[in-house]
């Protein structure tokens, strides 16, 4: 235990940062993920196939390519980067926010798929019933659809979180590896693996990463089970 937790300050920072990045990536992408999953599951519009393709891109592309594309778009000189910087004061390049963005993007297809599957399994007759009771589509969504897709949302969120804990290629390409700012656990682990004799350090950080993710995983399972028990299938 002592051996495991005997970390340098930079390593501690990497642990803390990874949790922060993964949490933020998960939380911010959740509402977007729900919206996109809804569009894909229910929408009938022209560019649906395209949207679906774009959502899957981070999965299809080598992470390094995704990271490079992020760099081009959200970098200091990238169009999206400039937009966010000008209008929201939100800078991604070389910031932990950029790491969160990269992790969120990489986890996005996983999250959307999970939520979409849940939405497709919802019995639309229940939504119709809610409509006749006076609930507007928005309320129907909030009070019927959303609770019914909770298991999928939990699954999507935990996938996104876990992915963020392991994401490396896109993150380091986009925001590089700055201790205390963008050095997440995987970056730190990577550094160790690149040095002869770094295996022990890599192992230690890997174990810490596993412990954190497992804790999140168990929490999500407990949560999902509780939600599921409440519901059963009518």
């Amino acid at each position: 235990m002592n051996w495991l937790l005997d970390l340098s300050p930079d390593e501690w920072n990497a642990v803390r940062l990874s949790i922060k990045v993964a949490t933020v990536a998960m939380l911010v992408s959740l509402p977007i993920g729900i919206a996109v999953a809804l569009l894909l599951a229910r929408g009938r519009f022209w560019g649906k196939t395209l949207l679906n393709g774009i959502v899957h891109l981070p999965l299809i592309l080598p992470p390094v390519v995704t990271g490079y594309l992020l760099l081009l778009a959200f970098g200091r000189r990238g169009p999206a980067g400039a937009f966010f910087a000008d209008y929201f004061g939100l800078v991604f390049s070389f910031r932990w926010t950029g790491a969160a963005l990269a992790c969120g993007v990489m986890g996005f297809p996983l999250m959307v798929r999970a939520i979409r599957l849940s939405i497709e399994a919802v019995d639309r007759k229940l939504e119709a019933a809610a409509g006749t009771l006076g609930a507007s589509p928005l309320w129907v969504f909030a009070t019927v659809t959303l609770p019914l897709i909770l298991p999928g949302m939990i699954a999507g969120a935990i996938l996104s979180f876990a992915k963020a804990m392991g994401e490396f290629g896109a993150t380091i390409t986009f925001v590089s590896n700055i201790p205390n700012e963008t050095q997440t656990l995987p970056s730190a682990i990577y550094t160790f693996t690149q040095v002869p004799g770094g295996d022990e350090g890599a192992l230690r950080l890997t174990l810490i990463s596993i412990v954190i993710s497992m804790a999140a995983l168990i929490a999500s399972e407990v949560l999902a089970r509780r939600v599921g028990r409440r519901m059963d299938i009518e």
Partner: protein
Amino acid sequence: RADEQLVVFAAASLKNALDEVNKACEKDVGEAAKISYAASSALAKQIEEGAPADIFVSADLDWMKYLSDKKLTKPDTEVKLLGNQIVLVAPKDSKAEVKVEKGFDLAKVIGDGKLAMGDFKAVPAGKYGKAALESLGVWSSVEGKVAQAENVRAALKLVATGEAAAGIVYQTDANAEKGVKVIGVFPEETHPPIVYPVAQTAESKDKDTPAFLKCLRSAKAGELFKAQGFTLLAPTQ
């Protein structure tokens, strides 16, 4: 089958040069080698796990030593094959001008931007860069502004896209990248020698291996290496 053909494990940064050399040597060796390009670290560990490689070309001495310490290379075949230089680059439109010398004002060049370089613990170019800056006495002034990239190419990209204000990369990479300009060369004595060593692996069985090793040091290979910006460390044969 990989077993029947000569297999070379080489650092990824050598791809352009080695591909051409491989082509040029095909007649002399009797066959074209299969070259697997990856990070030196990955290649070294794969050889350790019994990869069917006949030749290992590393991007630094550390990983070669890692293998030779474990008796996984044939010591008599190990040669310091190529050399390289590290340079200071800035985005093409940068107005920064500086002379690389003891105590030069690198911090000013960087401003409130970042200095991109390979991971200075893991990536060879990063290690050399850090050593050079330390010996020039400017490391402490920029340490907090360093953005460590996964590899030297990624560092180059950071500069080329204007993301980083400056970067330390190999001469070979800087030459070919239109998005950057070289604003200074680090003198050789400021950092450990940049060496690409080559060796035959202990488990190498392919009969063509010696021929390929020999061809690597041939004059025509030397020309091809030099064309890519490398310097030749071993005398051509």
